């Protein structure tokens, strides 16, 4: 008999698991960040720090995806804007911390019109627009009117920041990246536990119901887009800080897909899902010395396998497995995996 698919092309609802955040996830992340410098070599630590920096951008994508199903393909553009803004400000003698804060603020402001668009477009359309926005920003920064700021295709060295007279190099640099990453994950967890987080989760189910309960859905979408972009900008700055370099081709549309893939592979609904996803797709291939092309190939394959076989990501699958094997685990509850 012919198999048929009854699903009509509807964009109202999406097949994403409910957000499952717990303190255990945050503790695991903190433990990793603290233990890793004692285990890895200097080179490996630099790769891990860069991975941690990317995981903040992935966290932004996961927050948008898990809360209202937003496809934040704009994230590499925001990372580039954040990194280049901080770079320009530090070159002009601004203190590192102030440059970071202003760069994040500028990225969030740039994201406001995009946020306005999210409230008017369906998820598909916003994804397409984000894809195009990243392409546009990356090509404008690579060649053309912003070359003097970004250094063009070759990019620019990102000077190590200085906080309280301490240059952020080697272990001090790693400490700052690690602290910022853990802080970002903690703030995401807090956001989902707050009133705003609960409102976002209602919006994910149904905008009209959320509006009926007095939620200003349009405003909340704008705020969420700004927050997601803020994570992106911070991630871009941390990538510059960790790797010592920022070049526009690093932040092209391929990275949009890699960040989204990392969120989905790790498990967008779980707090440390973005961290796990980044380790799988960014850090391990870098440690294995794979070329960029091979890394992209592997990322695409893993994304496809994950979307088909593990739609809830690695952590979601692990949680399902624990629930299946262990009779003491309640069905549908948080698994405590973070």
């Amino acid at each position, binding site marked *: 008999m012919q198999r048929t698919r009854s699903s009509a092309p509807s964009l109202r609802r999406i097949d994403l698991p409910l957000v499952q955040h717990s303190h255990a996830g945050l503790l695991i992340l903190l433990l990793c960040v603290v233990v890793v410098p004692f285990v890895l070599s200097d080179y490996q630590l630099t790769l891990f720090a860069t991975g941690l920096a990317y995981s903040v951008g992935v966290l932004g994508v996961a927050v948008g995806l898990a809360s209202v199903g937003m496809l934040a393909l704009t994230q590499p553009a925001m990372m580039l804007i954040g990194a280049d803004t901080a770079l320009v400000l530090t070159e002009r003698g601004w203190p590192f911390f102030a440059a970071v804060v202003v760069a994040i603020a500028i990225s969030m402001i740039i994201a406001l019109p995009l946020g306005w668009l999210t409230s008017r477009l369906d998820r598909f359309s916003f994804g397409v627009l984000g894809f*195009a926005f990243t392409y546009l920003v990356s090509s404008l920064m690579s060649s053309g*009117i912003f070359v003097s700021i970004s250094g063009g295709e070759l990019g620019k060295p990102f000077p190590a920041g200085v906080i309280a007279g301490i240059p952020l190099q080697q272990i001090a640099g790693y400490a700052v990246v690690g602290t910022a990453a853990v802080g970002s994950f903690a703030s995401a967890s807090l956001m989902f536990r707050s009133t705003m987080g609960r409102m976002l989760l209602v919006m994910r189910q149904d905008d009209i119901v959320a509006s009926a309960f007095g939620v200003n859905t349009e405003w909340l979408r704008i705020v969420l887009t700004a927050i997601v972009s803020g994570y992106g900008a911070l991630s871009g700055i941390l990538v510059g800080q960790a790797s010592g370099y920022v070049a526009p081709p690093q932040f092209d549309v391929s990275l949009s897909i890699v960040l989204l893939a990392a969120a989905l592979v790790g498990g967008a609904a779980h707090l440390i899902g973005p961290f796990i996803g980044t380790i799988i797709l960014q850090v391990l291939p870098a440690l294995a010395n794979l070329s960029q092309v091979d890394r992209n190939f592997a990322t695409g394959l893993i994304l496809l396998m994950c979307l088909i076989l593990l739609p809830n990501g690695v952590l979601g699958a692990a949680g399902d497995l624990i629930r299946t094997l262990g009779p003491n685990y309640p069905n549908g509850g948080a698994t405590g995996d973070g």
Partner: protein
Amino acid sequence: MLLETLVGGIALGFVYGLVALTLILLVRTTGVLNFAAADLGMFCAFIGFAATATWHVSLLLAMAATAVMAFALGALLYLTIILPRTADPLMLSLRTLGILIVVRALAQREWGRGAPYEFPPIVPDGAINVLGLNVSYVQIAIIVVTFIVALAVAMLTQWTRIGLMLRAISSDREAASELGVPVIRVDLVAWCLATLVAGIVGVLVARLNYLSPDMMQPILLAGFAAAQLGDMRSIRAALPAGIALGILQSASSVYLNQPEWSQVLAFAMLAIGLLMRSRLQRRVVAT
């Protein structure tokens, strides 16, 4: 100068229209937005190129093989990536992002080092003079091929049994399924057709510009814009939108002397198209 820019823009616009056609074909029937549409075309163009450059097959045979490969590639992607574990259209569209990155990485790995390549001349080099205007054979070929493809797709959907099924599914997927339309078979045909059209686009772009793994990035953006301005439903609306965008882009790169403005224009038209479409949908819902 102005008229020649216009002709160049029109030819480019026809390419955008063809990309829009591949996108619309899949969105209307399967609900899936194929982010990999343009890059699949690039991959097919590389297969044609490899057939002539590496295996020294005649150009005609290479183009025929490319068409067959494109058709088969569409079937393979649908059966192995889209069909297993049915999900909502958004999640299925995310799978096409995975296809995009795999296809581009494969092309970069195989052919990236020597890129960009010059595609073998599917039409002779040179131009003819039409009313004092120099129109290249490639530009004429693009316009003619686009008309033939659009006409063929229109005839297929209007006059054949499979076309009737395609229209039934795009009208109401669930009802069509209940009435016995073989949804999977029709989806498969839609994927094969869309990939075939993408392959044609890839060959045309490779001949118009150059052949390289990243040659389709700007084309995809403009194709999205054209498709959105056609409300993701109508190729009759998408084609003029693509032509308008092509003309604007050509004019901007010539007269503003800043090639990147053409991308800004494409982005602006995409945003406008999306907003117009969204407003239209809201109005339909309200009435």
